[in-house]
């Protein structure tokens, strides 16, 4: 008789975040339907949390609190529901020139969202807002996914940077969609790297500049004319 909880022995490593992509996907699929294993996973998450919270104390730099509160000021209120957080428009204090620099920075391979934000933030303090930013959140199909789109409204070029999307089989890719009134145009396809980071340069078609939201779905490699696979991310411009 086969084991009803075949991934159980993987749960400690899962909570440490050290499984490979296949194993991690297997565990997540099982957890989606098994309350007992979810409870066990939670117990190991607590161990990881206790180890982490025992870190030797270190004083954060003095300006960090103010930076965080300022960043929070520019974000709309979070959703109260347990669903994916709604995306929100965020005016970024980045000068127009770094709109192009932002595109170039990602093209040069600054694939880590944190480094990317650091690169752009450092270049940009205190100047007038000229870039549009949208946050994309994972749907229940990809709850760990999180991403940002930066668009330069002057030339309608932009960049997508995402983290936390699961690896796909070789015959599939993720596809970005620009959405307006139910109409969907492709923004391009991308494949996350081994770290789970994906990026994409996009050009908004001239007749679609007033689109209102984004989606990301799983499609056959090379993309589809219209979405066919599960939706993994969504966000509003």
């Amino acid at each position, binding site marked *: 008789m086969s084991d009803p909880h075949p991934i159980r*022995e993987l749960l*400690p*490593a899962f*909570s*440490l*975040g*050290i*499984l*490979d992509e296949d194993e991690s996907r297997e565990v997540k699929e099982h957890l989606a339907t098994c309350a007992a294993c979810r409870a066990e996973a*939670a*117990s*190991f*998450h*607590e*161990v*990881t*949390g*206790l*180890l*982490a*919270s*025992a*870190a*030797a*104390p*270190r*004083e*954060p*730099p003095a300006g*960090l*609190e103010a*930076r*965080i*509160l300022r*960043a*929070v*000021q520019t*974000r*709309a*209120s*979070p*959703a*109260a*529901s*347990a*669903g994916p*957080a709604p995306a929100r428009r965020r005016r970024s204090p980045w000068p127009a020139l770094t709109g192009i620099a932002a595109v170039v920075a990602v093209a040069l391979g600054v*694939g*880590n969202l*944190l*480094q990317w*934000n*650091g690169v752009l933030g450092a270049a940009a303090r205190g100047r007038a807002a000229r870039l549009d930013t949208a*946050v994309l*959140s994972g749907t229940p199909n990809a709850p760990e996914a*999180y991403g940002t789109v930066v668009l330069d409204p002057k030339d309608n070029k932009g960049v997508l940077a995402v*983290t936390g999307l699961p690896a796909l089989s070789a015959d599939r890719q993720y596809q970005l969609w620009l959405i307006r009134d139910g109409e969907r145009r492709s923004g391009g396809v991308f494949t996350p*790297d*081994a*770290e789970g980071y994906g990026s994409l340069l996009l050009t908004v078609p001239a007749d679609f500049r007033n689109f209102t939201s984004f989606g990301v779905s799983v499609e056959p490699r090379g993309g589809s004319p219209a979405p066919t696979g599960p939706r993994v991310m969504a966000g509003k411009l």
Partner: protein
Amino acid sequence: MAAGEDSDEQLIQRISSGDRQAIRLLYGRHGRLVYSCAFQVVSDAAAAEEICQDVFLRVWDRAGTYRPDRGKVATWLARISRNRAIDVLRALRARGTPAAAAVDESLSAPAGSGADPAERLWQSLRDERVREAVASLPPEQRRALSLAFFQGYTHRQISGILGEPLGTVKTRIRDAMIKLRSRLGDRGEL
């Protein structure tokens, strides 16, 4: 927490409905913890600062997803911070940056070498119960766990670093975590 102050769970609830004062209070209580967790992994003040900011922004965005039955807020925050820091360390490592190399070098002393930096890291943990629980592990379990916990190496990578079979590494890490869970659970931590 003084009488009349909101609990951590109440602060999270307030944050999920957009209360900015609540996130300020949460940072006041746990900002140092989140920063310390990140620093422990990346050993770099600038990176730790970015991670800490990222964690609180994530909390702001996703406070609605916290479930009290999944554990205390502090351990939830600590885990998010450590996980984000591991992401950063892995990305830096993939790009071959000197910062990641320095962390790796400093923590991957060969087993049995005189000064074991991973051991020092375990001993620097500020919670005596957690320190004791880790100290109660057999050294080979502790060693494998340190590569996983502090550096986010996969089983395969740890197997390569330690020169041990993959199956052995998996078992050691699993046994270490089970033992820690039982020790920390017995003391009412879980």
